[in-house]
């Protein structure tokens, strides 16, 4: 198994069988990512797809830091997931085919590799997967 690291400490609980996003609360209002010094809150792992788009070409780098090339780039989908009673979270999705995504469908948090460093370290970030896709896998 390759060595792994998270893209940024404090974004999600890891390692974990059931990871959660780490938010914070101040004056009753949730923030994600968490604001330093505030009360920490673990967010719900499931929510509904609020809206999405697809990235069809390699974004400018920086900020994009994938280790691919324009030729090898694989399109991905991203958007907002509404966590009930909490907030909207922007995230990548594991499903890149827009015809298999629909507003309102149930999504679940997962942790996925998104790039590999030159030394072979796999970098992990959070994403959401359609619940039916997870069930099928």
């Amino acid at each position, binding site marked *: 198994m390759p060595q792994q690291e998270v893209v940024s400490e404090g974004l999600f609980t890891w390692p974990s069988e059931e990871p959660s996003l780490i938010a914070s609360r101040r004056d009753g209002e949730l923030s994600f990512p968490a604001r330093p010094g505030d009360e920490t809150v673990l967010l719900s792992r499931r929510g509904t797809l*609020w809206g999405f788009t697809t990235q069809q070409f390699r974004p400018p780098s920086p900020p994009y830091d994938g280790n691919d090339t324009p030729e090898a780039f694989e399109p991905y989908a991203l958007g907002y997931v509404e966590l009930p009673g909490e907030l909207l979270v922007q995230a990548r999705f594991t499903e890149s085919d827009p*015809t298999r995504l*629909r507003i309102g469908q149930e999504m679940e948090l997962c942790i996925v590799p998104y790039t590999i460093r030159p030394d072979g370290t796999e970098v992990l970030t959070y994403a959401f997967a359609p619940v039916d896709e997870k069930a099928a896998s």
Partner: protein
Amino acid sequence: MSRASMTAAAVALPRSPVFGIVSCPVGPETREFEIGWDEHERDVDWAESLLRSAGLGSGDLVLITISTWEGPWTTPVVHALRRIGVTFLCAEVWSFDSRRTSMFLQRLPVKAIFGLGGETLTALEADEPPVAELLRDVEIVWARPDALPHLEDVAPQVVPFLLLGPALALGVPGQPGVKVDASEWAVDSVNGELVVSNARERLATFERVPTGIRGSVRAVDDGAVVIDLEMNGA
């Protein structure tokens, strides 16, 4: 430098002699012509008046699906929306961007759509939710001629939006036909085809330009040429 001070500095700069130079299809051929500042302001005034009479007001949400080459006709509408205080949402008029149109309609209380086209509707019809559901709460749809047949019995208030040669023609909910600014344009019907001429001086002169659109002039009333179109759904 604040936005206000940048705007003030920009206003003080020498202004270009014309509002814009256009190269675009006018009726059956491509024409290049200039649009002056005065006539642009008059076009915005007219668009603002028509949009207000259609019921748009400050704070309303309007989805616009227009393309950049249509600027001579649609820029006055966009500027009028700004004047009114409308918040407008932009999506491409082409099928590849139909999901953005769908998302706006599902997620936001869109009061009107301006420029809905046949390509967008064809793409939406192949997807969920149904178009009738998407448009259920939209009060006004200014639809292009190729979209009108899709919208019969679907949207509550569908009125035409079309490029009538160099002139803009818009419907108003509850009123017959489409309207063209009579102070700027004269419209006639020749063997059933609408032709357009200047009604007053503009930088570009048009004289009985064929539009490729069939219809007849119903009346010249209250500053507008009212036209009955001969097309499905109009």
